[in-house]
């Protein structure tokens, strides 16, 4: 009975929100410039709307990070800090704290408990374990704290999930390659780390396309998302004498391209991640490329989602964010690739559809 009432109330609210979208967009500039629908896309048809009590700002927001020590995580924190310093965002944020616990679940539990004690309004979370934090998330939610998880998301639906769709990423790479090769040919598949969720999802996405075309043949190697390893395994594959018409690669792409160059071969069309080295080589040598990567701006997006929900926005519980994509036509020096920055730099630092735009040199200057 109570539940029924609740649903009706929610329904009313969403309808009202829809009807008054224009009026609301003035009140909620954060949501408005995102074009609402485009940025906060529900994961799938089954995704429910996240129910949360509206709260008056400005807010205290904490970013709980787990592992620190690779380029992606460092950029992620730098971008999050830059985002909270933007004048339009700063108005809504009273205080912003960042903490990294390492890949240690109990340290991250302790860290989140500390955030609960500090009385934050929202915790934005890159989790050390998909399940290990569920009980502390329960506690946070019971204490009235909104939890938004991104990148390594958690399994509890009491938190909002913000991530890119890895399956779709693999699928898009494959579809592009199929078009480039004319539905047939030999495709070299460079996978990531065996047994991980991301590797499985991307591969499933790729296979869902490849299996539709009997003319397509695939050869798999594992590059472990690492330039050195990828270069080695691709060099081995090339040494076998097989001619590859295209490459589908999950990462370590700078190494993949170098392996082709060292073998003295013309680079075939390649669909891969978004490392700076890979994009720089593609721009220089002009081989056909499709580059889609996990954006380090996901942390900033998590903050944006948290603020939007705290302000009373009705967002999906699971949000699929647009895939940052670049092709030969859209590669632009200083915008989505940077020849003067390290190869390991992750280029998709902006999520345009969500109004998140950052400059590489400014980001890198921010102290972590």
């Amino acid at each position, binding site marked *: 009975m109570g539940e029924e009432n609740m649903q009706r109330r929610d329904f009313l609210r969403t309808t009202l929100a829809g009807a008054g979208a224009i009026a609301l967009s003035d009140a909620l500039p954060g949501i408005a410039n995102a074009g609402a629908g485009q940025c906060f896309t529900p994961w799938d048809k089954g995704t429910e709307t996240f129910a949360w009590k509206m709260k008056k700002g400005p807010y205290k927001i904490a970013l709980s*990070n787990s592992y*620190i020590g690779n380029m992606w995580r460092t950029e992620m*924190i730098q971008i999050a800090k830059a985002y909270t310093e933007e004048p339009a965002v700063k108005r809504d944020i009273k205080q912003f*704290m*960042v*903490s*990294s*616990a*390492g*890949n*240690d*679940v*109990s*340290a991250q*539990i*302790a*860290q989140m*408990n*500390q*955030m*609960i*004690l*500090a*009385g934050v309004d929202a915790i934005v979370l890159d989790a050390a*374990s*998909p*399940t*290990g*934090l*569920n*009980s502390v998330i329960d506690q946070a939610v019971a*204490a009235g704290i909104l939890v938004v998880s991104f990148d390594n998301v958690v*399994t509890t639906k009491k938190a909002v999930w913000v991530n890119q769709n890895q399956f779709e990423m693999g699928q898009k790479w494959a579809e592009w390659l199929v078009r480039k090769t004319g539905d047939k040919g030999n495709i070299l598949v460079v996978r990531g780390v065996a047994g991980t*969720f991301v590797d499985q999802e991307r591969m499933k996405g790729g296979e869902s396309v490849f299996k539709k075309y009997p003319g397509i043949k695939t050869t798999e190697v594992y590059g472990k998302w690492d330039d050195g390893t990828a270069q080695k395994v691709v060099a081995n594959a090339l040494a076998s004498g097989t001619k590859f018409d295209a490459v589908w690669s999950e990462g370590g792409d700078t190494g993949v391209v170098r392996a082709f160059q060292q073998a003295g071969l013309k680079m075939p069309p390649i669909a891969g991640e978004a490392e700076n080295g890979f994009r720089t080589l593609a721009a220089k040598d002009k081989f056909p490329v499709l580059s889609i990567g996990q954006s380090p701006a996901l942390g900033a997006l998590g903050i944006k989602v948290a603020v939007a929900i705290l302000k009373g926005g009705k967002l999906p519980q699971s949000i699929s964010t647009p895939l940052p994509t670049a092709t030969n036509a859209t590669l632009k020096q200083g915008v989505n690739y940077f020849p003067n920055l390290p190869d390991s730099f992750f280029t998709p630092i902006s999520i345009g559809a969500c109004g998140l735009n950052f400059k590489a040199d400014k980001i890198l200057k921010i*102290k*972590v």
Partner: protein
Amino acid sequence: MIFRRYNTSVLAVVALGLLLIYYYIRQPLILSPFGAKILANQGTTLALAALAQLVVVLTGGVDLSVGAVVSLSNCIAATYMGSHPASVIAVCVLTLAVGAGAGLLNGVLVAYGRIQPIIVTLATLYIFSGLALMVRPQPGGLVPPFYANALTGGWGYLPYALVALFVVLFAVWTPLMRSRLGTAIRAVGDNPGGAHMSGINVPRTLILAYVMGGVFAAAAGLYLTAQTTSGDAAIGTSYTLNSVAAVVFGGALLGGGRGVAPGPVIAAYFLSIIISVLFAAGISPFYQSVFQGGILMVVLVFGNLWTLRTRNWLTILKN
């Protein structure tokens, strides 16, 4: 008399006291029922793991498989517990039995295999981590809310975690250490030859010490399961070295023979709480681990300064 027996623990007590005072200044809310509860919950897993390490260290060994046994028992408990009280109790007993079995394997290899404990437990570390992955290839699992609440909840200012820990300390640890077995463990650690000549069955004592260690490590895993309400095969890694640090910080000698429980347990709380204090103090995440290590080092150095006052270095070297 009592003070002399426990004076090795003084350092940990003072350090924890100072840490809590500083924490209170930065975050007065820790003096609330919720604050007391999270402080207690934070250190209990490591405190139990430190007891597991201590009993092995007392024999003169070191147990590198503590973290793996924590992971393994966490995976077993979270995977098979179910929701019926009877099955919960059965799975708890089973988990402790698996811990005992793990300890038995370590003990037999050390006592009869005549292999260095550090090598034996390094090898079994891989075996137990592998088993944990077999039980739970992906993180997940479930425990009933009443189980989690019974171990991590609280009654006013009294956290159940402390109740559980005191039960383990006074109903299990103290009687065992005061029994003939406890004396034998210390004797073996201090001087195995002498212990043998005095009629102590050294291999049997070693095996029982490792079995106890396995059971305490499994208890730590059970507690961790209540805290995380799920299983993860990689969760226990950090407990191995932290338990060694807690044992040394708590005043036990790595060489064996000396050490009493309060020190390592209190040191475990110190090591677990320090990360929250660093966060409350607003230290940048990049430098948190540097501070963590630095503080630990400073505390240990200050704690041992008194030894320099002695007239004869021989007394220092002997201690």
